[in-house]
């Protein structure tokens, strides 16, 4: 396997007495788009700030392109494009001047792409940055993160504030970057935002990685919501104990459950009764995520226990 672009093991970070990260693991491979998902306060921004050497780890190992962020210093950061979670832009300089300033901090790299990217995201470069709306500020953030064509993009909630059209445009841009060989780590609260581009996803909660899987793997594990209506009341235990059946519920003659894996056993058991109606729909990933958020652990029959269960990024 190729060496990981980002390798984080057992990362611990405290803010005074608050433990923000409690042994987080993360492994991002070259060329993959990696979703970094977790509820508010899970530790996404903290992890990302450690990668950017804004914060220094209290314990654990962190490498980016094989180097600790502090060791790598400016040379390492020159390979990374970073979009902060809360981008503060104040002052009377215009968006264009600000982007030129940021390009200048990178030795001028990316300067020639500012105009073209501004056009693509419909950003008016002549407006003062403090007068920009939130979405327009976010565009400045996106443009500065990608303009120098970095090998690695670290994006903290990149689509927040963008309208659906621009979210779409942004995801398109991420696909282009991947096609060019860039590696992307993007955080979000919701899987929906990243599922269309991410190869793999890590779910974190309270400073720990609770689940890692490919988006397809997650989809499989999300399972289905099944409802069966019978002519007469069936025996609950005969259905509830079947493999893959979870959260069974019997209401009158209607049986409902979550189903993971093959439906064969359930169908054959059901067929012993007279079935007068049935519905089976794929659970959407959001439902799976609510489970993970609530329970703080992986769900589903073939759940990978915690971290490290690595599938090839191009499993899809």
């Amino acid at each position: 396997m190729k060496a990981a672009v980002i390798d984080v093991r057992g990362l611990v970070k405290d803010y005074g007495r608050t433990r923000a990260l409690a042994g987080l693991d993360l492994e991002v491979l070259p060329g993959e788009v990696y979703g970094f998902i977790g509820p508010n306060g899970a530790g996404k921004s903290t992890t990302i700030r450690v990668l950017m050497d804004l914060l220094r780890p209290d314990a654990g190992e962190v490498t980016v392109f094989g180097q600790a962020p502090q060791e790598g210093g400016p040379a390492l950061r020159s390979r990374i494009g970073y979009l902060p979670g809360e981008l503060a832009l104040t002052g009377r300089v215009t968006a264009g001047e600000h982007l030129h300033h940021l390009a200048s901090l990178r030795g001028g790299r990316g300067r020639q792409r500012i105009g073209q990217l501004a056009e693509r995201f419909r950003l008016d470069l002549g407006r003062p940055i403090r007068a920009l709306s939130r979405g327009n500020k976010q565009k400045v953030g996106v443009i500065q993160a990608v303009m120098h064509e970095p090998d690695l993009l670290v994006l903290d909630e990149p689509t927040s504030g963008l309208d659906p059209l621009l979210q779409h445009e942004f995801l398109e841009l991420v696909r282009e970057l991947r096609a060019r060989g860039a590696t992307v780590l993007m955080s979000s609260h919701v899987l929906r935002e990243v599922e269309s581009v991410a190869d793999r996803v890590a779910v974190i909660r309270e400073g720990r990685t609770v689940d890692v899987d490919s988006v397809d793997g997650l989809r499989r594990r999300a399972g289905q919501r099944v409802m069966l209506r019978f002519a007469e009341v069936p025996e609950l235990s005969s259905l509830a104990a079947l493999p893959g059946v979870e959260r069974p519920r019997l209401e009158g003659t209607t049986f409902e459950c979550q189903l993971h894996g093959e439906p064969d056993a359930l169908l054959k058991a059901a067929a012993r009764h007279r079935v007068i109606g049935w519905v089976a729909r794929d659970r959407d990933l959001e439902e799976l995520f609510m489970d993970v958020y609530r329970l703080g652990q992986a769900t589903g029959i073939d759940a990978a226990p915690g971290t490290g269960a690595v599938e090839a990024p191009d499993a899809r």
Partner: protein
Amino acid sequence: MRAEGLTSLRRVWRDHRRAMWIWAAALAVVTVFYLAFWPMMGEEMAAAIEGMPEGLMAAMGYDRIGTAAGYLEAVIYGLLGPVMLLVYGIGLGGRLIAGQEEDGTLELEFAAPVSRLRIYLERLLGSWLLVATLVVATTVAVLVSGPLFDLGVEPLNVLAASLGLLLLVVGFTTLAFALGAAGARRSAAVGAAAGVAVLAYVFRGVANAAGVEVLGALSPFAWMLDPEPLVHGFEPQSLALLAAISVIAAPLGAWAFARRDLMT
């Protein structure tokens, strides 16, 4: 790839030049305005202070106010100049790292391929440049006022006094800057630097009024004014003491800045 020459410094200048020019104009106007009173004040002043108690006069620095150099020192170099410049410099010093770190506007600069030391140095240099421009504006106002209002003070001595003022203000600007860079909140950095400045001012007053020489020896205001640069010109030893504030504070701030968490 390395950042282009002095990108951070140029940005600091750019962000602050407008306000700075307004301060420069204000300082120049105030300076000329007060010095314009000299021709009238000179004689009256000499008469008025005749009856004052000696201790009070010494504390206020009025014992020499009957001379042009004494008036210029008491009004501009001993009071208005340092007060206005310190308000500006300490506020600026606290803002350039601590303040901008708190409001988040430095996050992208910190994440850029620029070392923390370089960010620190360019921003510190930026603050010095802004403060120095204000001192130059004040000095020019004094030099222009000289012949206009018959001050009769040696231009070279004015430059000596201005250099002392510059080193004093740069010292406290650097102190606020270094404290903020070392991890103090902006308000704490500004408060501490301003507190030390006020203390230094009071120390000199007490030292002169009550003759407590230890306090004078500890006060940068005494270092700046007691050698009477407007009369005697440059005095390397006290200038070196004033410069020492920056020379000590700046590296300590840089050392701590390179080691701590940012944006927390």
